[in-house]
């Protein structure tokens, strides 16, 4: 019997299994977009057929980081900006786990920006959901990397002189193989995109537009949005890097002009995930490494037998 018998269990999964019975109202404000992510994530799980014990959810710090308090799986609420490196290693250690990381725009695009670039570049097989509310929520409303230029806050009283970061373009450039934007106000699309991202074999980055009615009154949910995949006006090939880049440029500009375009922006299926590449060059074992520690028949080599010869 496998030491991780929860993995590969193919019974019907009910989304309620992902509800731990602890109420998010405890920490999230009424009307917060984070509820939408939680709901979409729970709805996506039965579609991908993963049960709570085989899912490992890694979050950062912020209101968004509380996600795994309300989602019943293995959870790791890490530190500000660092969910990705912790998650990456868990996936390498046990590639059979379903690894999902999540956090806010400050968390993922600010303090954790470097990790996002490298995780995308390496194309780790995992899903990263960024709750983009264009504000620092938990620390009470400071300007974030996605706040629009001119945004005023207590720490930028004269209005920010910085242009917002372009997270989708950045991830595409860095090497992510699945890039999408969705919004809490579009639950069906959100659920579908999350399910698709989880099933994608490679790094999937979802910029999830949420609203923070407490600190960001200009939240995007007041604005009508368009699903680019369903609109004939935005016909492009999601697997074509060039067309996708152009589409992302447009959507990221329009986002700040008041038109919200959501949907899949780039999907590349051919590139092997990082773990696969590592396995191919002989830098990663075929079987999940974590299993070996629970396998009574596993043989553990001694350095004495193997390496000490060089030193004689």
């Amino acid at each position, binding site marked *: 019997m496998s*030491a*991780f*018998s*929860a*993995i590969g269990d193919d019974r019907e999964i009910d989304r309620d299994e992902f509800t*731990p*019975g*602890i109420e998010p109202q405890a920490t999230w404000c009424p009307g917060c977009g984070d509820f939408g992510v939680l709901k979409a994530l729970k709805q996506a799980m039965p579609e991908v057929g993963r049960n709570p*014990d*085989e899912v*490992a959810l*890694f979050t950062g*710090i912020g209101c968004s980081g*509380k996600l*795994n*308090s309300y989602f*019943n*799986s*293995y*959870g*790791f*609420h*890490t*530190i500000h900006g*660092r969910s990705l*490196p*912790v*998650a*990456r*290693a*868990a996936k*390498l*250690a*046990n590639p*059979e*786990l379903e690894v999902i990381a999540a956090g806010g725009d400050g968390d993922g695009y600010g303090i954790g920006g*470097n*990790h996002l*670039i*490298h995780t995308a570049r390496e194309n780790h097989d995992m899903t990263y959901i960024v709750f983009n509310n264009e504000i620092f929520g938990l620390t009470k409303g400071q300007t974030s990397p996605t706040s629009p230029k001119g945004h005023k806050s207590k720490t930028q009283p004269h209005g920010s002189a910085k242009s917002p970061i372009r997270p989708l373009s950045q991830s595409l450039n860095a090497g992510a193989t699945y890039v999408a934007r969705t919004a809490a106000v579009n639950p069906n699309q959100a659920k579908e995109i999350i399910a698709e991202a989880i099933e994608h074999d490679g790094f999937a980055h979802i910029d999830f537009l949420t609203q923070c009615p407490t600190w960001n009154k200009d939240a995007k949910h007041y604005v009508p949005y368009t699903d680019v995949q369903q609109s004939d006006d935005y016909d492009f090939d999601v697997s074509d890097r060039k067309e996708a880049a152009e589409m992302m440029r447009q959507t990221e500009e329009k986002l700040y002009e008041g038109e919200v375009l959501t949907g899949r922006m780039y999907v590349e299926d051919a590139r092997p995930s990082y773990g696969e590449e590592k396995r191919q060059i*002989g*830098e*990663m*074992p075929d079987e999940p*490494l*974590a299993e*070996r*520690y*629970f396998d009574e028949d*596993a043989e*553990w*080599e*001694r*350095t*004495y037998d*193997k*390496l*000490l010869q060089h*030193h*004689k």
Partner: protein
Amino acid sequence: MTDNELIWRIAGGSGDGIDSTSQNFAKALMRSGLHVFTHRHYPSRIRGGHTYVEVRAKDEPVQSRGDGYNFLLALGDSFARNPQEEAYYGKEELKPLYENFDDLREGGVLLYDEGLLDQEDVDETDLEAAAEENGWHVVPMDLRGIAKEHGREIMRNTAGIGATAAILDIGTEEFEELIKQNMSGDMQEANLNVLQDAYDAAAELDIDHDIEVPESSHEEEQVILSGSNAISYGALDEGCRFISGYPMTPWTDVFTIMSQHLPEFGGISEQVEDEIAAAALALGASHAGVKAMSGSSGGGFALMSEPLGLAEMTETPLVLVEAMRAGPSTGMPTKPEQADLEHVLYTSQGDSARVVFAPANIRECYTQTRAAFRIAYEYQIPAIVVYDQKIQGELRNLPASHFDEEPNADPGSVLTEDEIQDAAHHSSGKFQRFLHEPEDGSNVSPRSVPGQKDGRYLATGNEHNPSGHISEDPQNRIAQMNRRLGKLDDIRADLDENASHQTYYGPEDADYGILVWGSQQDTVFEAVDRLNENGHSVKALGVSDMMPYPVEAVSEWLDSVDEALVVEMNATAQFRGLTQKEIGKYGDKLSSLLKYNGNPFEPAEIVDGFESSINGEDLAASNMKFLPAAGD
């Protein structure tokens, strides 16, 4: 000065093959039956500059570098031939020759490559006068010429070895054997010819010196390796199969060795974007059930402070290596210092519970890395192995049987799925991962690993209740803090019982003591022998457990001496401070001998320092500092 020993120094520019040549020299001497020890000195430069390695060989185990040396092989710096640099730095290529004059003992041999160094320039260095004054035997030889004749100029080092062998009359057999083992084809043949030619040429010179190379044989099979090798092998034998890192001198050594070997052991190595990520990855792998480690040196370790605290709070096992170099900030990248002690003990926010071991030599690098893994995984706590640039690179022989230990792949206090079924669960379905009072009466609560059935829990850096849910409840807070911190007492008891890492040296009833930690320990031991020979009554205690501190053992030992001198390689007496803090007394009994110029102590310096301290004299040498007792 000790007789009957060879201390051979090879000096050249970085890139001249000084390292590999000295390694082979040391190995050859070991194979011939001697005990060897190497000391490395190099600048923070990739090519050129003055670098040297000393190989000390005796017929008994060698504890440290010696005082000075008695044979210099000066290859000259072949990378210093740039006229622009010459205008700026002077004649750089000569540095490996004339910068080594100070420590060459009376009657020593000085062999240099006149093929590289212009005789005219050499004359300008007043070599002749110095040689006369010190009774040195100066041997200019065209090593470059010999090398070129049979192969290529870079084989100058092989020529140097051949000439050394002739002058010391130690034969070339072992060197030939090594060349045959390490090379093949034309390279092998050329090197063998260079070796023999240089040997013959030097033998003809018939130099009459009185360096006696001792003869000996080993009772047991020996191996020669560095502290970084020993740490890496300790980790591998303990089942470590994941490493993540970012290069920084001198930590890079362990990272490289592990990266080279992990794939063949079925493990994974990851070079990542920075040290925060490095520690975070090791943490993530450990969380997912793999034995993992990371590490760095001063500045990089500073970045690991947050993941380290996260490991403490989430009770995730984690092993970190901190290879110290001189600070603050980037300090002196290639020079040893023991000044990161407080950094590793106290970095990261909050009241912290972590384990810190400071191995004193290569032997301990292996055993204590193993202990660090065992403790980290059994007690679910981060463990740090702190050592320094000195042990990192020095080579030393020890019996191969020291490594003949069974591997331990046990992931520690992790439950099986059956055990999880029987364990307590929260009404939300979550497994009670952080029980206030674990059933076995210990402070270690049961752990599950993602993917195990019904083992779901939340690991969080926030304070949390038994199932991992975030909680600021005061009673819960106290219970969790007490349990986490309580592990240190359990670990102290465990170490006392199973693996005392403290080393006692010298006569038990001695009046004076020298207290020491880490890489300076064995040098102190050598000094203790000499002090007792000089009629003093001295013993030493080398302490390796920094946290939890062995309060009882050190108190008892301090009670048994009138006074103690604490020897360490930093300017602020960090280890003495730790001792006083942990024990809470002895302020009037402890004084310090400190050195922080980038070079480790030599035994004679400790002898001098000790003698001036008990005579109440000022230190004659300006490269050390004396810090008197501070009172209780």
